């Protein structure tokens, strides 16, 4: 790395005081190289924002903020609006959270409060493996295994029991908002689990002990002492999971059915911001089409930055210094 600099420490005597004064050439070069590398990171982000901003200029000029609330998507006529995409993104992410949050909380509580010491690490490790599976593999499994099962057995059952709700009515498709939501739930579960586990681990033992000493059962100790203490951190974990779900691309693209319409029911196909970029960017030829897709990317970026910033603030409140927020990434 910086090995080319002259070696001041082992050379003649006069060099030594300089080294001690902290003004050796090696130190200067070292600091310079490190600073350069470090500065690259913020510069990269600035560059990313600028590129997305410039790239979306044509679409922003033409549609302004109304892009976000319009439903048209017509590359031939050059008319674009992202409302169905935004709605689809939010809906799939919400479905994912509804399924994943109770599950991951249950696992996190079991692992920190009830589980025998010997199984804690192995279970956390195995669930961590879920986070390592590439998105496209989830998509593959979703297309050929999960969706057929959902369509033939789970969806009809849901419709029979919850069909009175508009969300669960209408014709049943395989590729659908709900299928995408289910695969997303599996994908974000490990993140929410591992961050809430870190948060629960950061709750001082004295909290539990106090509750138990007052005669609480172990579950009552969890509910009355542990969870309230870690609440904002757990909320942070959930929002971090939301951030993941919003930007998840491949698995959703492969399962959601890719239809530019506001999904009327969870059984109907839909679209998300990430999925439309994945599907159309490589084939887009019209400048306005590319610009509209870049505008979509800019919107997605802005949303995830806001969501992640919120999550991190909440996590830092509880687990300050434990690094729970960044470790989970």
């Amino acid at each position, binding site marked *: 790395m910086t090995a080319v600099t002259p070696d001041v420490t082992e050379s003649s005597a006069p060099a030594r005081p300089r*080294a001690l004064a902290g003004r050796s050439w090696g*130190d200067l070069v070292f600091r310079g190289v*490190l600073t350069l590398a470090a500065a690259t*990171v913020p510069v990269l982000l600035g560059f990313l924002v600028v590129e997305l901003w410039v*790239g979306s200029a044509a679409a922003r000029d033409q549609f302004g903020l109304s892009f976000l609330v319009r439903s048209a998507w017509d590359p031939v006529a050059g008319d674009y609006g992202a409302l169905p995409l935004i709605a689809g993104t939010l809906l799939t992410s919400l479905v994912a959270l509804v399924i994943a949050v109770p599950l991951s909380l249950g696992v996190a509580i*079991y692992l920190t409060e009830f589980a025998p010491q010997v199984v804690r690490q192995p279970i956390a490790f195995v669930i961590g493996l879920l986070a390592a599976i590439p998105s496209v*593999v989830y998509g593959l*499994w979703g297309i050929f295994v999960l969706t057929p099962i959902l369509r033939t057995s789970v969806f009809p059952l849901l419709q029979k029991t919850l069909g009175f709700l508009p969300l669960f009515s209408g014709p049943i498709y395989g590729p659908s908002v709900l299928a995408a939501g289910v695969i997303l739930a599996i994908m974000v579960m490990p993140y929410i689990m591992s961050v809430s586990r870190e948060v629960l681990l950061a709750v001082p033992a004295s909290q539990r002990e106090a509750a138990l000493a007052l005669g609480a059962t172990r579950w009552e100790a969890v509910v009355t002492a542990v969870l309230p203490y870690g609440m904002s951190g757990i909320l942070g974990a959930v929002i971090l999971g939301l951030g993941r779900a919003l930007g998840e691309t491949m698995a959703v693209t492969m399962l959601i059915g890719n239809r530019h319409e506001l999904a009327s029911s969870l059984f109907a196909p839909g679209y998300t911001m990430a999925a439309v970029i994945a599907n159309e960017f490589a084939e887009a030829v019209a400048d306005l089409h590319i610009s509209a897709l870049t505008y979509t990317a800019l919107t997605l970026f802005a949303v995830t930055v806001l969501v*992640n910033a919120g999550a991190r603030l909440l996590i830092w409140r509880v687990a300050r210094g434990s690094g729970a927020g*960044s470790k989970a990434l």
Partner: protein
Amino acid sequence: MSALGRRRVRSGIMTGLTVLAVVVAVAPLLFILGDLVAKGIGNLSPAFFTRLPAPAGETGGGVAHAIVGTLLMVGTACLIGLPVGILAGIYCAEYRDSRLAWAVRFVADVLNGTPSIVVGVFAWTWIVASQQHFSGFAGSVALAILMVPMVTRTTEEMVLLVPHSLREAALALGYPRWRTSLLIVARTNAPGIVTGALLAVARVAGETAPLLFTALGSQYMVTSLREPMAALPLTVYTYATGPYEEWHRYAWAAALVLILVVFALSLGARLALRRSSAFRG
């Protein structure tokens, strides 16, 4: 039943529910791995690793081009991303309270949360649009951008694990700062830094979204980064969403290979970390 008895029963039931949550959470992993092995392993053959794709509809052929493409692109991404990420991480650990260190930490977290598809769009507008053609290099840059923030954060964390007394001892012996940092602190926790690097490689090796419109994919054996290039995750995507039975079988086999690679890298990362566990308090 006494009130205490009822409360105990309720505690037991809720504990049972958390166990159930564990079972439900672990089940998908078992199903996915089981299906991958069951549907993928039959299609793995020497030809699968050494041959190019057969024309659509024909049998035989392999994904050699995608394996080579992934190796080349991930390798190039490492060359670009790892030095920057590791040095930036060391900077954050060395000059912890400098304003730049705070900015780097914040930005790295922002970039870590950025969807990879957005990074793909960035790489497109930056490189593909200006060069007027898709290329493996653009894909490498997209992957490198994803690696940098991950590596920065883990490197900082790992460097900070080295006891302060070690650094002080070196400085007290008259070592200049750069030697202390590189030869004592960084080297002492080299396994930790390797762990961070391996985890980052594992993550980007499976990335598809940022390659869709940078590397684009290809049916040919391409070894020049200036041309559109295939990658294993792209191949899984194309084959899984394609119309042919034969393609679907290749998608399963390619996915099995991909996941074996990713798991091997993650496992390697964990093993490397175990070697450095001496410094974990």
